[in-house]
Structures are given as structure tokens and as C-alpha cells.
């Protein structure tokens, strides 16, 4: 069965203007997402997940490697394939305010996709937008049509952003930190909305987040990124019950649980230093600088992603030892 999205050895580098310094934001990432699957991509700032999102959305081109959607290399598509790709790969952005044009009403923002992709449908655009608003629980739909982004709350704006993303029933929805800017009590609502939309449409989701507690409830499989590479790739169950990579363990230990009895009894893993910047030419494991169990071997050669068992992949010479 052909995967819906196939990321093959993708790299993306940026040259910092004036200094000649090269930032390797994405440094060799490979994974695939199947149909009706929810994949989580986790990592902290500088790990490259946002850059990777932009590459998948076609907002930038990879320096190396290939991204395939429904079998086609997205960098080399015919106009027809491109149209199909544009229509079927949609994104929910992080900042609910910044992702809506402040000078357009909700109705206008939501009409765009219909105007571009289905201009000849019999149903009026207004009717379709209303139905869309109802699907994301923004009622009464008519009232929201003429509202501007600054007139609605953050949670409501995010619903509009989701409505925009799912309006044409895309096969892949990318949500980049979709709930990070929202209050705790609203996050659950929004995630439920995404879940229900998936059940209805059978779409695949790629959820990008720095917060593992957001991914816990939603994902089938999760990839952990560090400095441009995947360091662990596993099913949700495998990752949370049996993390292997030292960074994954540190990340989990730092994701505080809202329960004092549990939280204060957990093992403390406090990493030294900050995430090193993705610049420079080190040959060894990029985590070795902060790793609590780094050995000489780690500093010499970078470990590749190796399948341990049942699809649980780790990039570490000493998995499970931290």
C-alpha cells in the first residue's frame, strides 16, 4: 500500500546572509504517513519541525531529498498533479491571529478555497461556508460570516483556521502547534474537533508539537526530532511506555504531569546546557554534547535510525540505557 506522504532523506539548509554560516535546519529526515493515520512530530526549538512542515506544504523547497505525495515528487509535478496536491494537503497554523487576514471577514477567508478549487459547484459559496462553520461548531453560522478576526476569541479563530483547512476534505492535514496558543480548557475542545473531523473524512494528520502531552492523546505514531534529525520513531504506545533514546527520556521527564504525587515521584533528568545551535560540522551524534550517557563512540560517528523491534526505531548506540 503506497504511503500517502513519503519523506525521503530530506535536508534543508539556510545560509545566513553576510556571515556565510550555514544552518542545517533539517538534516536527513525520512518517514512516511499512511492513509487515515495520525502522525506526531515532536521536538523543541531548533529541531527543524517547523521547517519540515513548510517543506511538506510546498512553501519552500528541500535542499536535498524527496517529498512524495500520493506517489508524486512534489517538486516535479505536472500542473494537474500540483492542483491535486494543493487541494489535498492543508495546514492549520499555530498563531490563530496571524493566520487569518485581519482585513478579511471570516466568510471571505473561508470562501477562498472554494473559489479557487470548486468555482463551478452548484451550491452557493455562502451556503458551503455556513455548513463549514457549523461543522466546527461556530453557531449561528450566519453571524460569523461577517465577523473580523479581532472580533472573535482565540479558540474561535482556531476553529476558523481548522474549518479552512478541512473545507475541501483534504487527504492530509498538517497542524503546526495548533493548540499551543490556546488556553488549557480550550485545547481539549480543539483536539476533539480535529479527531471528529478525521473520523468523518478519513484524512491523515501530521501533528507538530513541542508538547508531548498534546500528542499523547491523538497520535498513532510519533517521531522525535533533535537538531534536524529523527532520533526516535515509534508507535504512541511504544514511545510512552518504553522510550529508548536519551533525549526522548529527557523530553518526557521534562513534560510535567499535572499531578503532584506522580510528578514528584518521577525520575529527574535535567539536561545540561541549551540545545546546541544547528550550525557547525560535528561528526558525532548531535545529542552527545548534552547526553548523560555519551561515550567516545558517540562523539565520533553519528548513529543512524535503526529498527529495534516492531517498527520502533532509535538513533542511538546505547538505547534504553539512560
Amino acid at each position, binding site marked *: 500500500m503506497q504511503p500517502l506522504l513519503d519523506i525521503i532523506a530530506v535536508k534543508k539548509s539556510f545560509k545566513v546572509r553576510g556571515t556565510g554560516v550555514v544552518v542545517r535546519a533539517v538534516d536527513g529526515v525520512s518517514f512516511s504517513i499512511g492513509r487515515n493515520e495520525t502522525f506526531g512530530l515532536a521536538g523543541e526549538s531548533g529541531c527543524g519541525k517547523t521547517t519540515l512542515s513548510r517543506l511538506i506544504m510546498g512553501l519552500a523547497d528541500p535542499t536535498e531529498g524527496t517529498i512524495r505525495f500520493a506517489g508524486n515528487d512534489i517538486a516535479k509535478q505536472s500542473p494537474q498533479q500540483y492542483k491535486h496536491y*494543493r487541494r489535498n494537503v492543508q495546514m492549520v497554523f499555530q498563531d490563530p491571529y496571524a493566520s487569518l*487576514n485581519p482585513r*478579511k471577514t471570516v466568510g471571505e477567508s473561508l470562501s*477562498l*478555497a472554494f473559489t*479557487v478549487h470548486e468555482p463551478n459547484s452548484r451550491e452557493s459559496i455562502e451556503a458551503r461556508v455556513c455548513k463549514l462553520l457549523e461543522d466546527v461548531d461556530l453557531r449561528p453560522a450566519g453571524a460569523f460570516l*461577517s465577523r473580523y478576526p479581532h472580533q472573535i476569541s482565540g479558540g474561535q479563530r482556531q476553529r476558523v483556521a481548522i474549518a*479552512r483547512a478541512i473545507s475541501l476534505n483534504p487527504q492530509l492535514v498538517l497542524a503546526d502547534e495548533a493548540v499551543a496558543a490556546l488556553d488549557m480548557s480550550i485545547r481539549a475542545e480543539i483536539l476533539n474537533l480535529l479527531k471528529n473531523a478525521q473520523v468523518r473524512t478519513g484524512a491523515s494528520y501530521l501533528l507538530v508539537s513541542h508538547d508531548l502531552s498534546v500528542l499523547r492523546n491523538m497520535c498513532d505514531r510519533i517521531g522525535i526530532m533533535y537538531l534536524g534529525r529523527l532520533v526516535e520513531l515509534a508507535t504512541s504506545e511504544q514511545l510512552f511506555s518504553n522510550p529508548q533514546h536519551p533525549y526522548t527520556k529527557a523530553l518526557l521527564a521534562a513534560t510535567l504531569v499535572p499531578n503532584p504525587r506522580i510528578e514528584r515521584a518521577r525520575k529527574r533528568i535535567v539536561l545540561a546546557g541549551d540545545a546546541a545551535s544547528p550550525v557547525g560540522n560535528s561528526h558525532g551524534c548531535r545529542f552527545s554534547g548534552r547526553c548523560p550517557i555519551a561515550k567516545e563512540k558517540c562523539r565520533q560517528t553519528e548513529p543512524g535510525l535503526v529498527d529495534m523491534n516492531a517498527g520502533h526505531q532509535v538513533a542511538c548506540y546505547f538505547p534504553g540505557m539512560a
Partner: protein
Amino acid sequence: MKDWHFLRQAHSLWERFSPNRLGVFGLVILLFYVLIALFANVLAIYPPLMTGSGPSFAGLSAAHPFGTDNLGRDIFSETLYGARATLVVSFLAVVASTVVGLGFGAIAGYFGGWVDEALMRITEVFLVIPAIFLALVFVSIFGGSAWNVVGVIALLSWPQMARLVRAEFLVIKEQTYIDAARTSGAGNLHVIFREILPNAISTVIVNVSLTQASAILIESSLSFLGFGDPAVVSWGLMLHNAQKYFNQNWLMAFIPGLSIFLTVLALNLVGEGLAEALNPRRNVRAASLPR
């Protein structure tokens, strides 16, 4: 969905503009002069440039509220007709320069790269030319007429608009909602006109007001120096004529000078009022409560 949009926006703009007393004051003055210009032929006592309507340097009277000039022209009527020329010439120039400036700025800002470089170099050429020099060249090649004045002013004003628009486009095109529009399938034309431009328009509007003020000043200066059209009354021309006769009837210079001052002031006040009113930061309402 589109009905009443424009009216609603205009109304809300007025709501934000009206508390600014100085801005409203400026607007009133502006409207005053616009009305004068519109109804000059009704309000004036004598037709424009009519010499000998009265004795030279006549004193103030009902027939000549501001007296007459050296050739017996009624200063009051001249001022009224002068308003027309000054406002129309400057307005036409502003329209032209805005259209050209918008075009250059939008394309340069949106596409970047070598397009941006090329367009900006052209813009810089015009920025650097001194006004008088350009006027001189123009007049010597094309002769001195009102249309040429419009041309000169337009040529001098468009670069600033271009730079402003370019700066706005550079910033706005990086916004997330532009990415969102692209992923929805919007093409370049849609993004430029329906996504970016509405967000840049407030800066443009403010600049139009300020450009108009400067256009009036340029027009007056050019006419004053003799590069304007001697057949068309304008305040600058009146000042040009008034140079030698300050002692005989100081109102010859004062009235047009005052008018120039007031309209330029009014436009600046309105421009600043608009800038305040259109400032998005003041638009923060229910959506973001304090924590």
C-alpha cells in the same frame, strides 16, 4: 456577504477619527477650501484674471473684500479661482504618483530579487533629482503649462510612495495569513490585490494626504518661481505677482500665502489623524482580555 462592507468600514473609520480634534479641525478647513474651489464661479465677484475690475491697489470694500492687485484684479476672486487650480493640479499629480508608486512598490516588494533591485534603482534616480532642476528641464522642453506642472509634481512624488508601499509589502508578505492563502491555492494576483493590498492601504491613505500637502507646496513654489502656467490662476502665481508690491497691498501676498499655509496644515492634520485612526494597535478589543 460583500454588501455594506465599505460603508461599515467607512463608518468605523469615522468613529476612530472623530475623537481627534486637530484632525477634525484639519478636515473642516480642507472641506472649506474644497467647497470654495467647487463653487468658485458662484462665489467670486469677478471672473479670473480680469484686470481692471477696479483701480489698482484699491482699498478694502464690498466689491473688493481684499482689495485689488497691481493690475486691478480682485484678490478675493483670484483666491477663489486659485483654489481650484492649486487643488486640482496637486490632486491630479497625487493620483498619478500614487498609481505609479503603488505599482512599482507592490511589484518590487512582492517579487523581490532582481526585480526589486531594478525597480529600486529607477526609483532612486527620481528621488535624487532636485525639484527646481527638473522643473527647469521640463519647462524648457515642453513649455510651461498646468499639465506640465502636474507632470513635474507627479515625477517628484511617486518615489516616496513606491518606497513606502514596497516596505509594507516586504513585511506583509511574510505574514502567516499569506502562507495560508497560498496553501488554499491563491495565485499571485489574488495575493497581491486581495490579501496584501488591503493591509497596506492604510499606510497608503495616510501618505496620500501628506503627498497632497507637499504637492501643493511644490506647485506653489513652481508657480512662484515662474515655471507654472501664467494663464491659470493659482496661489503660487499670485505670490509670483505679489513679489514687487508688498508695500502697496500686502494682502496680495498674504491671502494666497495664508491659503497655502492653511491647506497644507489641514492636510497634515488630516494625515496624522488618519494615521492614528488606522493604527491597528488601537483596534484591540474584546478578543484579548488582560490576564
